[in-house]
């Protein structure tokens, strides 16, 4: 099987994108998931629904809003230009922003259920031992919820790799910048280069299977432990 340089470039770009998005979402998604797991506020429902929106929204809706919002006439576009960053569409960081929205539920929801399954008890114990909430989070919650962190990260990474519609709409298909593997495959097919499309598709197929296998094989083991 032969992958061309541009295929490898697309794969590398995809890995870079998915890694950065996973890192950002670990930082952003953890507090959101923690709040959702603990709060009794009435707006837990609405916030939870907003977080879950990318699960049901067509990627074209997200892509459309992001294209206009981050464009020169959109609110985000005004902001990024005022900050001297320039415009985000057609840039790698534009894809990062888009993917953070797109993959948000894949980070938040597994974390939330991991946090919820810990329950109140361990935290109460930690509090009686005079652990500050932050202390308790890192010494009690994180060790207890680490399988949740792991599966949330794997799902987020994999889901970002699988992104296509949003990237097509705001990416502009620039080699090395926004041409990720899924778009590269689409281009191969459009250009009738089926052999190249096959090769890259096979890579994606094997990758996706291995990711899911990791999660499914390892889950029952965790329950047994």
């Amino acid at each position, binding site marked *: 099987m032969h992958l061309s340089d541009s295929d490898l470039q697309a794969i590398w770009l995809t890995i870079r994108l998915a890694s950065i998005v996973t890192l950002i979402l670990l930082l952003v998604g953890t507090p959101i998931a923690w709040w959702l797991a603990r709060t009794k506020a009435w707006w837990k429902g609405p916030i939870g629904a907003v977080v879950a929106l990318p699960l049901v929204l067509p990627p074209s809706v997200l892509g459309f809003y992001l*294209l*206009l919002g981050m*464009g*020169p*006439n959109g609110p985000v576009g005004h902001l990024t230009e005022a900050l001297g960053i*320039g*415009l985000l*569409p*057609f840039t790698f960081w534009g894809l990062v922003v888009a993917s953070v929205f797109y993959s948000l539920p894949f980070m938040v929801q597994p974390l939330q259920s991991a946090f919820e399954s810990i329950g109140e008890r361990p935290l109460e114990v930690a509090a009686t031992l005079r652990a500050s909430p932050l202390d308790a989070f890192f010494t009690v919650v994180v060790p207890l919820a680490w399988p949740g962190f792991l599966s949330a990260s794997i799902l987020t990474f994999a889901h970002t790799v699988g992104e296509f519609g949003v990237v*097509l709409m705001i990416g*502009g*298909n*620039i080699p090395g910048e926004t041409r990720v593997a899924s778009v590269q495959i689409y*281009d191969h*097919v*459009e*250009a*009738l280069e089926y052999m190249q499309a096959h090769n890259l598709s096979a890579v994606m197929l094997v990758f996706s299977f291995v990711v899911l296998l990791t999660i499914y094989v390892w889950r029952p083991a965790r329950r047994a432990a």
Partner: protein
Amino acid sequence: MRPLHILFFLCAMSVALPANAEKITVAAAADLKFAMDEIVTSFKQENVGDEVEVIYGSSGKFNTQIQQGAPYDLYFSADIAFPRALAKAGLAASEVTPYAFGRIVLWSATMDATQMTLESLLDAGITRIAIANPRHAPYGKRAEEALRSSGLWEKVEPKLVYGENIAHTAQFVQSGNAQVGIIALALAVNPGLAGKGGYWLIPDKLHEPLEQGFIITKRAEGKPLAKRFSDYMSSKSARAVMTKYGFVLPDETLAQP
């Protein structure tokens, strides 16, 4: 009425369509978006009851889909090479009919493109230029050729963003995300786009001709409506619409400024 009656009524309704009404699906290159809409509207006025559904997209994608048995009755490609290949593979039920030559223009929604030339693309103020993907979109190929033959390709390549088809490319420019784009004249003359920054016609000696052609696909063989629609393309009113949208018709001279 009881549910069963309603069901019966609905079945009767669906059978009660005019006896000679037919339906065809047309796959058309994205540059035809406005022209084909008008042609279909006038065709339907003359053929009451018949249905013509048009799907717009990239010529390359339709080509692939038809190879895989897509349910299109006619295929209008922005590059005549695609229908020629399909005909060669036995997937056409008609001759490959050239219907127009396309032209490319520089177009902007935010700047006065009428005062531009291809050299203007080097301006530092222009940071994003949208073209259709040259790998599979005919208009993108011609845009690349025009930039190459003017010796600008290497210099502007870092600024290029690629649309999936020519309408997608126009949308990058319309939303202001790219300051200029190289799009189809047929799209740029549409009132909705022409009202913006205007366009500059790229001399056609800078690129290979954009010869466009259509076929009736194999699956539509013997469908009278497909034949009638194909004949309608050479009618006076259809030709007038094509000319209005800046297409040069096959039997006209290509001589244009």
